[in-house]
């Protein structure tokens, strides 16, 4: 039996031919959805803040023999701290650098300086490096100073000791969580060998890096 298109078949065939001539194509049914992704990266940021010194008037001193604190009676030397270049703020302002200036020091003058290191970023950091980047001490003042220190983390004492190298050893690799702070309270005791009329300076650079890349 011969097949016949019939009228309906003929119309369909004509329509298909027309569509093919005009370049139209047949396509399967489809639809699309869009997934949008937003990636926010964290930040590594540390700031430093000087929180004052123990010399706000009458000199802090120690006994020449015991090196224990004694009650002062005069304002002869001075220890002044300044904060330089705002780094970050979270209700408190933290800075890129601080400067501690001790003037007119003499044997058994013993000021305490306070330097607070704040993690003002959103990524935990570890202190990776403490470098002396500038040093000028022609009269060798530093060798006539005994250093005592106490280290606190969020105001809780975590270590104390003597000598800057011991402090550096404790601080090295110390991890600071976002929003937390490490505070060093450092007392400089000028000994009998302190040279008169001398001056010196040093600059230390502290580098903190993301915690997961510091071994």
């Amino acid at each position: 039996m011969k097949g016949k298109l019939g009228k309906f078949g003929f119309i369909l065939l004509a329509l298909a031919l027309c569509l093919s001539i005009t370049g139209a194509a047949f396509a399967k049914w489809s639809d699309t959805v869009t997934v949008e992704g937003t990636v926010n990266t964290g930040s590594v940021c540390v700031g430093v803040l000087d929180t004052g010194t123990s010399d706000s008037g009458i000199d802090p001193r120690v006994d020449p023999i015991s090196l224990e604190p004694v009650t002062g009676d005069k304002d002869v030397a001075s220890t002044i701290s300044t904060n330089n270049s705002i780094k970050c703020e979270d209700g408190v302002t933290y800075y890129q650098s601080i400067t501690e200036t001790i003037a007119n020091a003499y044997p058994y003058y013993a000021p305490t300086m306070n330097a607070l290191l704040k993690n003002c970023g959103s990524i935990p950091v570890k202190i990776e490096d403490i470098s002396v980047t500038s040093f000028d001490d022609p009269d060798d003042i530093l060798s006539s100073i005994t250093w005592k220190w106490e280290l606190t983390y969020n105001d809780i004492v975590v270590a104390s000791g003597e000598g800057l190298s011991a402090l550096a050893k404790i601080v090295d690799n110390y991890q600071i969580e976002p929003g937390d702070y490490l505070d060093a309270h450092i007392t400089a005791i000028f000994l009998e060998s302190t040279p008169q009329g001398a001056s010196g300076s040093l600059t230390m650079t502290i580098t903190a890096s993301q915690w997961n890349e510091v071994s």
Partner: protein
Amino acid sequence: MKPRLGKFGTVLLAVTLALAVAGAGFAKWSDTVVINGDVSTGTVCWHFVSGSFFQHDSGLDETCEPGLINVSTLDKDVGNTTGYFQDDHMLVVTINNAYPCYYNEISAKEQICGTIPVVLQAPVLTYASEDYTLPSGVVVTTNDGVLEFRWMDNTGQQFDPGGGPVELSFEMHVLQPAPQSTAITFTITQSAVQWNEA
């Protein structure tokens, strides 16, 4: 089947090579802070004030009884006293034509020239190659019995920088064992220490 980079892999490789060629490196995130420290030290300094030497014998001689008591004026101008500063801290005194019972009062001024307060220590008398400490208010007699001294003021006193000159004075008396035809010379050395170690 061969592994293929695909378009994305090719792009990454190209970027990596470009960075490597440009010398750039991959670095962990880090930040720095800086701590500066400056220190200067003070000075302890004092010196005799030039021209401040003074002695009381400008005419008639004075005398006293042993123990530096009952000072009185004699009727002649026989002995005399001269002095000069050997250095910032030493006074040299010479008594010429002296005789037993000759008395004089001698003074000099010191000036604080440092930045740290000082406390004056008891001065040291050097006579005939021997040293004697002169506590304030105490009569000290030399070992040969020739002279007696009494330091009068300011030992143990504290002086601050910026203050005016400080007067130091003492009495001296020639005693009976004094040798004849001999000029008597002695020195006074004044020391001071920073106030918090006095």
